[in-house]
């Protein structure tokens, strides 16, 4: 009785299920198909967000351009034309050159000719000027 009971228990501990015939071949094919599909999807999964992003930027740019075109904001106004004319005339160039020349002139003025000073002291400076100049030099 006890042995019979143990045998019954052992029997029930075994799985009552069996794998259907040809199941592994079918599983192999099904898994293979899903792997192939996932590989394709993997490529799409990378490409798709990039395409969506590019399309979104394109759309936003297009909409912005459309709105600006409709409201006339993109029409050429007179102010930029004037600026272009000023540049074309070479005003900026001439300003730059003028400034350069002025600087050069000022630099020249700083250098005092020695002969000029000697001549001045000899001929034009009076007796009263000389003590003043001397005092300043001291």
């Amino acid at each position: 009785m006890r042995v019979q009971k143990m045998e019954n228990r052992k029997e029930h501990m075994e799985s009552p299920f069996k794998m259907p015939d040809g199941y592994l071949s079918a599983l192999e094919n099904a898994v293979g198909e899903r792997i192939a599909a996932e590989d394709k999807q993997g490529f799409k999964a990378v490409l798709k967000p990039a395409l969506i992003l590019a399309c979104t930027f394109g759309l936003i740019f297009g909409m912005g351009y459309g709105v600006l075109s409709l409201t006339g904001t993109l029409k050429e106004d007179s102010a930029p034309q004037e600026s272009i004319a000023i540049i074309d005339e070479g005003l900026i160039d001439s300003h730059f050159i003028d400034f350069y020349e002025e600087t050069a002139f000022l630099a020249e003025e700083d250098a005092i000719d020695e002969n000029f000073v000697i001549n001045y002291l000899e001929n034009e400076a009076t007796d009263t000027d000389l003590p003043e100049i001397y005092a300043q030099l001291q």
Partner: protein
Amino acid sequence: MDDKQILELYNSGEKRQAFNLIIRKYGERLYLHIRQMTICHDDANDCMQNTFIRAWQAMDNFRGESNIYTWLYRIGTNETINFLRKQKIKNVFSPIDIAAHLADDPSFNGDKAQIALQEALSKLPPRQKAVFTMRYYDEMPYEKISEILGTSVSSLKASYHFAYTKMKKWILNYLGD
């Protein structure tokens, strides 16, 4: 071909061929384990496919620290637990008659007591069902189950005890009717 040779074949670039060898070698054992948890063949088939797809995705990172079957068993068990959790919600709206389903199933070879056991098993929460299946049918040591489910041994013992008590009560009621 042993695990080492299969892994060598996989690493040599024959990935699909090596993977098919894994399916051939361990498919049946894994099917019976999963089928015991899902009871229904179609559900077991879904879990098997998902398990092998996950295994394929993780295959490059498999370092061979455990043997391939233990690794597959872990993936399969967790996949099936997740499947059963989702199915539990579905079954609230459309419950399955296990006894009627098994009676028509040619891949089920059990008597009335087995049907009662399967029906009692189907009443368990997914995790308890997994613990019971691994312990009762696969006769797996608690330490191994703990490694697979990531739960402590004492918690597993308690879980098995609860499952066993629930099932015993349910079967006694079922056979008493």
